[in-house]
């Protein structure tokens, strides 16, 4: 298994489209690393540069400390699973699995045993004699995975491999991939635009936007401390509520002015937020940090008007409007009911609040010097 390091990696498509800019990452040996971002953010291009299918226009790619920029894809000893599986349509499943090994001049007996082991592991033994067009999407997915596994590469590169599956199958495959990673202990770089996949599978996730890395870290770390409004708004569904606001003096401390409402900032943050007094900020709060009851105390009330109530079963998502009409989402307990248009009081847990610089969109530190 291997460690993959990217140094100042960049990709420019002629004439002047910057697809990836200045990416610095180190993916640890045996790590399940997720590249997350919306389409066009450069995550696939980054993966393809690691694979060798695209040439980097600047920077270095190192596998186990060795620079591989100029190596052929085959010589990098990495395996990729494509979004569309890219099976060889004219070969049977067995031939698909064996093709790479044959080209690498692996002994026939070894090919047979490896193919058998891999197909057993993935449960595709009954399919070995079939052609790809006779397989379902999920089966093709497994074969594509098998083709990567059978090679026993230094690392696996997954290019949105689950995006063509239906929701149920996707959930199953997610779990299987996690198990697979655990049993193999392999280095995996997984590209996806699905934040659920990223959150559930990755040991660390890297969020990209417009070719740049925005934030890297363990999923919950990134979730709790988004580096900017983009990350805050990208993770989870519904995502963090982001509302333009101002920091004002209030009752001897600070408050967030949200229209007419004043939300008192917890004293612990006063030091750090003090410098932002009378300045424009973006106020952020996750839907789950708003409640329909006052609770044990310390929560801040906010009056809203009910716009919609979406009962999802285990929870209810309340879509509500502030006095000035701006909408927010709150995740409430399954028992919540309220008539549309009625006034409701929400209780905010401001210990979980975030402030972002309105101009740079970057998070404002909650503690320390500020």
């Amino acid at each position, binding site marked *: 298994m291997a460690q993959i390091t990217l140094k100042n990696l960049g990709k420019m498509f002629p004439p002047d489209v910057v697809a990836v800019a200045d990416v610095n990452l180190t993916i640890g040996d045996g790590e399940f690393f997720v590249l997350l971002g919306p389409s066009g953010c450069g995550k696939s291009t980054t993966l393809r540069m690691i*694979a*060798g*299918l695209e040439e980097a226009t600047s920077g270095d790619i190192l596998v186990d400390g060795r620079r591989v920029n100029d190596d*052929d*894809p*085959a*010589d990098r000893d*990495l*395996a*990729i699973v*494509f979004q*569309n*599986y*890219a*099976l*060889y*349509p*004219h*070969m049977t499943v067995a031939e698909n699995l064996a*093709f*790479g090994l044959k*080209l*690498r001049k692996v002994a026939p007996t070894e090919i047979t045993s490896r193919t058998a082991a891999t197909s057993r592991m993935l449960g595709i033994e009954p399919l070995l004699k079939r052609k790809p067009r006779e397989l379902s999407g999920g089966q093709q997915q497994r074969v594509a995975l098998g*083709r990567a596994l059978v*090679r026993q590469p230094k690392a696996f590169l997954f290019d949105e491999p689950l995006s063509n599956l239906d929701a149920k199958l996707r959930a199953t495959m997610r779990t299987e991939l996690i198990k697979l990673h655990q049993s193999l202990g392999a280095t995996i770089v997984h590209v996806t635009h699905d934040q659920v996949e990223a959150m559930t599978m990755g040991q660390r996730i890297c969020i990209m936007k417009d070719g740049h890395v925005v934030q890297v870290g363990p999923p919950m770390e990134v979730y709790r401390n988004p580096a900017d409004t983009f990350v805050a708004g990208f993770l989870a569904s519904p995502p963090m509520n982001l509302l333009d606001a101002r920091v004002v003096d209030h009752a001897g401390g600070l408050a967030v002015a949200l229209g007419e409402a004043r939300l008192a900032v917890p004293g612990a943050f006063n030091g750090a937020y003090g410098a932002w007094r009378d300045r424009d900020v973006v106020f952020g709060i996750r839907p789950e940090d708003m409640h329909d009851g006052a609770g044990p105390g310390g929560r801040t009330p906010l009056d809203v008007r009910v716009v919609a109530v979406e009962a999802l079963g285990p929870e209810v998502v309340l879509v509500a409007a502030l006095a000035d009409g701006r909408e927010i989402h709150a995740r409430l307990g399954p028992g919540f009911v309220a008539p549309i248009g009625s006034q409701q009081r929400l209780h905010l847990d401001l210990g979980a609040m975030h402030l972002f610089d309105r101009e740079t969109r970057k998070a404002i530190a909650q503690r320390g010097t500020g």
Partner: protein
Amino acid sequence: MAAGALARRDQRFGLLLTAPGLAALLLVVLFPLGFAVFTSLFDYTLVHPNHDTFVGFDKYVEAWNADYLPDALWTTVKFVVASVVIEFVIGFSVALALNRVTRFKNVYYIILLAPLLMNPVVVAQLWRMILHSELGIMNYVLGMIGIGKINFLGDPVAAFWTVVLVDIWHQVSFMAILLLAGLAALPREPYEAARMDGASAVQTFVHITLPLMRPVIAVALLLRLIFAIKTFDIVFIMTKGGPGTATDLISYFIYRSAFFGLDVGRASAMSVALLLIVLALTIYLYRYMKSLA
């Protein structure tokens, strides 16, 4: 039951929609074909253009015994194999090269298409001038680079290959463009997978491109094969089948039977026989290709 009625109604409506097309096909394909088959059973000549004298299969026997028919058949076989095989090799090479090209693609397309757009009569006349053994530009150029003059249309062997090469010049772009369309439509992913699997350019071609292209190749070969068997204009203009019988193709042979020999019955018999041969060949090749795929 209701679904059955619906299906029947759909079927009837479908038939109604296709009826004009089918009728047109019947008129322009089946009627002439039927007429040819019918005529081949009569002593129908241009001097006596009528179906008065029924002769059964006499015209087929007569056609089979026609002087120089074996020469024409053999020449046609050689011509078809030579031109189709060479066109395939050149056409595939050109298609592979062009498939990689991104700049000036349209320019290449136009250059490729130019011969194809030319009337075969014009093509043949043009080459006849270029290949004039004494005054043509080709021998002039060959002379300049120290190769002796070639008697392109006078020497039997040279004349055969000249006709083959002119046909290739004229038709190769058909092959190239058909194959290029096939190549352009191939999925990109298997190629990337092959690169990851460590396939070299040659291995990729053999293990990925060729198998994926098989249906297109089959169609291209089949179409060119049928066209090649029907080749007429080039021979008609350039050699009249000569020198001797070196370039006497079957379609020109049949043409002469009808318009020189005035014997439409015999020409029809030959045409029908040729049609059956081509049909059998087509079915056989089609099956063979399908079994490979």
